[in-house]
Structures are given as C-alpha cells and as structure tokens.
C-alpha cells in the first residue's frame, strides 16, 4: 500500500511588493473616480477665469488650465472616462471574443473555420482607422466609443483565448469528462473556463491599458468624449498649445495615464507569470 500522499504542499511564490503597490494604485484610481462628486473637488468643467494657467498651489494642488479649471479635479473626473472606456470595451471584447474563442477551440470543425476566418478578415482591417471612421460618423459619446472599441478588440481577444483554450481542449481530462457523460456546456464552464481564466484575467488588464492609449489617440484627433468633459486623452490634447506656458497641464494627466498603465501591465504580467509557474510545476 502506498503511503498516503506525502508530497509537501507547494506554497505559492509571493507576488511581491511591486504587485501589491500596483494593485493599490489601481484601486485608489477606481475609488477616486467613483467618489469624485462627493469629495468636494472643484467643478471640473467651470473654471475661475481670474486664475488661468496657474502653477500648483494650496487651492489648486495641480494648478489650473487655460480656462482656469482645476487640473486635479479634471484628472480625477477624467479617470472616469478612461476607466469606463478601458474596462467597458474590454468587457465587451472579452465576452464576445472569449466566448467565441472557447467554443471554436472546443468544437473545432466548421464553427472554428468560420469564426477564425471572420476574425482574420477583421484583423486585416486597420482597426484604428476603422474606429476613427465609425466614431466620426456615428458620434463620440462615451458609450458609443466603448462599444466600438470593444467590438474592434474582439478578433484579437478571440485569437488569444482560442489559442489558450486549444492547449487544454486536447488534453485527456476533457475526453474523460466527455466519457463520463458531461454535456458540452458543462465541459466549457467547469473544465475549460477555470484553466483559461488566468489568461483571460492577465490579458484583460493588458487590454485595458491598450484601450486607454487608444482613447488618448482618439482624443488627439478630437474624437474622444465631447468637450467640456474631461478625459486624460482630452487633457493631454488640449495642453499641446500651452506646453511652454503651462507644462503642468500636460504633466499631470500624462503622469496619471503613465502610472495607471504601468500598474495595469505589472499586475497583468505578474499574474500571468504566477500562473505559468504553477502550471510548470505539473
């Protein structure tokens, strides 16, 4: 008789300080964006015309812009746009692309051929140009931008999730579940999803970062949320003309975007590595 399982339980490698600082930073940005209206910030859209392009001071820690609006307040309210567009679009992309990717990888055959072909057609189209064209035509309210960017990200997400699913769909435990009489839905949700989830999470965060940059690019073309609503992209775009007079105007939204993107990438990357290590222990 074999002695009972004697393998010592392997402890997870700690995720590290940098990871938790990044998580904390993302959480803080979220919190501030949600409670922005209740923490007594200055009105982000109506400025004090007596105080234009001022540097940081007690009243305005980040200074004011060319219309005398408080930059701190605008950076925090601007986070709302970046977060909604970033997380919203990726949620749409993940739901559509992820579901299709898992089904295609599991079922293979005609479904796979058809959806994969469609994804290649979409990928062959320059996404940025398509997004610009549709936004310009349809309008640039925040929900429209979110939907358009979300759909544009679908084929890329599809390819990633399909590949991740494929490496598990061919393993024997899927066959074993089938042999026990499990339904396709059960195999997809109970057997495959938990295995693909790490890829979903880490790719989601890195995707959000990409979408936030895309919002910035749209803003540069004047195609992000309409003025006077603040977004990090809009603010950086507006700061262009005043770069020599008021560098603060460019610095703070850029810094906010930069730090947020770094944090997202670090968290996504650390999670991915941590999952990889566990996998390689098999």
């Amino acid at each position, binding site marked *: 008789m074999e002695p009972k*399982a004697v393998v010592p*339980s392997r402890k997870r490698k700690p995720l590290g300080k940098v990871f938790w600082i990044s998580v904390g930073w993302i959480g803080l940005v979220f919190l501030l964006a949600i409670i922005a209206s209740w923490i007594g910030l200055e009105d982000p859209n109506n400025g004090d015309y007596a105080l234009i392009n001022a540097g940081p001071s007690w009243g305005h820690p980040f200074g004011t812009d060319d219309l005398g609006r408080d930059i701190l307040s605008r950076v925090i309210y601007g986070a709302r746009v970046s977060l909604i567009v970033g997380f919203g679009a990726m949620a749409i992309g993940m739901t559509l692309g992820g579901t299709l990717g898992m089904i295609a990888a599991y079922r293979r055959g005609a479904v796979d051929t058809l959806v994969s072909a469609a994804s290649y057609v979409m990928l062959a189209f320059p996404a940025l140009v398509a997004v610009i064209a549709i936004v310009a035509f349809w309008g640039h309210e925040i929900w429209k931008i979110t939907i358009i960017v979300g759909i544009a990200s679908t084929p890329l997400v599809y390819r990633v999730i399909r590949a991740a699913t494929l490496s598990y769909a061919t393993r024997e435990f899927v066959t*074993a579940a089938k042999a026990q009489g499990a339904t396709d839905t059960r195999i997809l949700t109970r057997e495959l999803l938990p295995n693909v989830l790490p890829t979903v999470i880490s790719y989601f965060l890195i995707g959000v970062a990409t979408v936030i940059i895309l919002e910035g690019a749209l803003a540069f073309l004047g195609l992000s949320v309409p003025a006077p609503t603040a977004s990090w992209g809009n603010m950086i775009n507006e700061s262009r003309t005043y770069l020599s007079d008021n560098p603060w105007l460019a610095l703070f939204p850029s810094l906010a975007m930069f730090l947020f993107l770094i944090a997202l990438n670090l968290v996504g990357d650390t999670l991915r590595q941590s999952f990889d290590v566990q996998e390689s222990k098999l």
Partner: protein
Amino acid sequence: MSAESTPLLTVNDLVVSFKKGRQVVQAVAGISFDVFEGETLGLVGESGCGKSTTGRAIVRIEEPTSGEVAVEGRQLTGLGRSELRKARTSIQMIFQDPVSSLNPRRRVKDIVAEPLDIWKTAEGAERDAIVREMLEAVGLDPDVAGERFPREFSGGQCQRISIARALVMKPKVLICDEMVSALDVSVQAQILNLVEDLKAKYGLTLVFIAHDLAVVKNVSDRVAVMYLGRLCEVAPSDDLYALPAHPYTQALLSAVVEPDPEKAASHVALTGEPPSPINPPSGCRFRTRCPKAEERCATEVPELREIAPRHQVACHFPTLRA
C-alpha cells in the same frame, strides 16, 4: 473467469476511418471480438496499429465509421446524444497520461465526484462518503488527498485518482489505454496490482490496451494482437505467449527484452516498420514484413479462424502446435 455464454462486451466488424487531407485512413479495419464478464482482454500491437483507436471507438470518443459495439446486449453504436451520455456511465476509460487526464484547476475530491455531479446521483454527505470510499479503494488518504490539486501528486498517484474517478459510477467495463506506460517500473507494479485488486472487488471487465507485452500478459486472461488495423491472433494469454501461431506475434515476442543476462539478447527477425495505413498492402497486411509470405497472402485476406479451443489466428500459414 466465468465461462458464460453471452459476452458482456461485443465488438462486431468495427471500422474507424479518418480523413487525412484527401485520403481516407482506416485506423481500424473491421475487427470483431467478445469480452466476457469478469475477464481481462489485453490488446497489444505497435504504435499506429489502431489499438487505442479501438478503445476510444468502444466508448465512442472516436465515432466508429461502421460496425457495432454492445454492452450487455445493448447497442452503443447508433445511440443518440442523450442516450449515449447515459450509456457511458457503464463503460469507463483510463488514459495514458496521468497528468493530462486530470483538470489541473480542480481539487481531487471534485475530480472524483465529477460523475456524481453530472448525474446528480449523490449529493451532500452521501457524495462525500462515496468519494472517500473510492479514494481509499485506490490507496489514497481522503483526508490528505481530497483537498489538494493534481499538481501535488506524482504520476502514479494521479493515475490512482483517475481510477477512482472512473470507478465512482460503478461501471461494468473499464478500458485502460496504456495506463502504466508513463510510469516507472516500481510504480507500474503498484498500479497493476491495484487494478487486479479492484477488478476482483468490483467485478470489473477490462480491456487492457498496451504496447508492453510483459505488462499485458501479466494482467490479461486473453490477449488480442493487432497489426495495421486488423486482429492477427486472439488467445488465452499463457497459450499465446507459449505457442504463438501468427508470424507477427512470434516477431513481437522475440523482441521483448527480459531482465535476465542468461537469456540471449533478443534479435528481431522483423525488419523495418509497419507500412502506412493510408495505402495498406493487399491481402494480408503483414505480408510485406512476413518471412512466410507467399503469393496467396497478397491476394486473399486471411480470416480470423479457430486453430485450437479459444485460440484464433488470421494467417494462411500459422504455426500449429505439434
């Protein structure tokens, strides 16, 4: 073994073909055999001979192109999706790769309970009790093993978990596909002994597929030898190894290495490797490598016929016992 007249598992003229580009490959080219209750049938052959495909076609993980598979007289082939799902609980399979057979992100107790959850046969305390019983039956401590993930176990222990999962619905037939070939000899012996014990305890009927002739002989009552999608020889295992009638069986046996320096090093009469199943030789499929091949072998397919009680061979020129 019981010598009942009606077999538990019947495979009749099973054909499985795949499309490979434009060509059709017959991995299994019409094989028939019976397995009786409480019996272990070994299925041996070189890689690519179709032995694994046969096993997978029996449980219909691979869809048979034609032919019939029946368990207790009930046809598995031709069943609709939901009927097939139900039928699958009576016939279970264990795979070669112990690690890939288990979902890395689920706990052992949930892996073993999976069939119970699918069929809602047991819930709550009853479910836990069954899982404990099965884990104990395969030699694992349920208190320690249940909460852990597959990565924390060795290959042999993973294979035990697979066995527990396969037996949880009390199946009639267990198909073991190369279940010990990824394991070290010492662990292999543990698993083979376990399989023998469980077979007696739960009254199982086994189809044991492997390429290792010594392993197959050890566990089987009868052995069927496959070559390029067809059966060459079926016989009680001691008979088959003592008096192989088919030239291919003889060649396979001559190639076995034994842990005994006093026995001369094995030298196979067999040269080369099996031809491609895309374009198999006419007549007898073994004739291209057979030392006994004559003209007749190229034109006439040898049928499986009985040359001694329970000893069947598909060869025009078998070695008959003196």
